[in-house]
């Protein structure tokens, strides 16, 4: 599948992600999911293309942010579906990419 849309977290959202829920503070995983991630994911799924998520330039992704965004997306749509339509770019760190994919494959319910 071709990449036809992308989210650059640093410029489109924040370079300092927050916690899990909007009630936990600014730039939460829930806020990211609601404002950006879910709509773009649904569009990618509907039109059968890949959504690229650029993880670079961000100073650390809290586990709660990842859980509140990608984890929640995985709980809703299934990990296979999410990984089918989302691709990650992380030149800064492969481990951070692996952590996020791990959360998608084994999302924590909170």
């Amino acid at each position, binding site marked *: 599948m071709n990449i036809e849309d992308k989210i650059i977290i640093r410029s489109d959202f924040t370079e*300092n*992600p*927050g*916690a*899990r829920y909007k009630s*936990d*503070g*600014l730039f939460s995983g829930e806020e990211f999911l609601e404002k950006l991630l879910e709509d773009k994911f649904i569009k990618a799924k509907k039109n059968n293309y890949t959504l690229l998520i650029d993880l670079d330039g961000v*100073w*650390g*992704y*809290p*586990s*709660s*942010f990842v*859980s509140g965004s990608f984890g929640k997306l995985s709980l809703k749509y299934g990990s296979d579906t999410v990984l089918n339509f989302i691709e990650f770019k992380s030149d*800064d*760190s*492969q*481990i*951070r990419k*692996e*952590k996020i994919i*791990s959360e998608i494959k084994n999302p*924590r319910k909170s």
Partner: protein
Amino acid sequence: MRSKIIIFLVSAVTIPSGILIGVFVKNYPFLTLKTEIGIVEGLSFFLTLGLAVFVPFMVKRWIDDDRFVKIYLIQELEELISLLKKDIVTIESCYKAKQVTDEDKDVINFNTHLVDLKIESFIEQFNIAYPRNSKIVEDIKNKNLAYHHFLTGGDFMNSSFVMDLKFFKQFRAENSKTISGIKVIIQSIQKL
């Protein structure tokens, strides 16, 4: 200075000894020197000499290379431990102040990023030196993930979080456990 003295002493002993042995062999009839040598004998001599010099040199080099690889890998892990100890400083400061600011959280998040980078550096080097040993790589990744989940996956990142003794103790225990786990990996590397 010391090596020059040793060189002088060795020269002072071996050169006169060599001359005396040569004179002795030449002038005493019960010792005869066969001046003709066969090609096979000559080749055998040089082969033996070559092996005597080459084999210890190669073995020493192989041992030294392995030793230096381990030193570099262990250095990476020691630097990783230093990064993890920085979290203690941040959390202790939050505990003393009885509050966690956004800046404190950013510091913790950034440090987790540095920890990830350090682990990647270690893994890249380790995979070159020991390509068939995936156990250590998986072990360190799992330890990192568990620590990351504990520190940034719970209430600590919430804006309403209040630093208390319970969290402080839990953090110290988890941090200590992670550092100990890395020290065990260091021992495993020594034994490779």
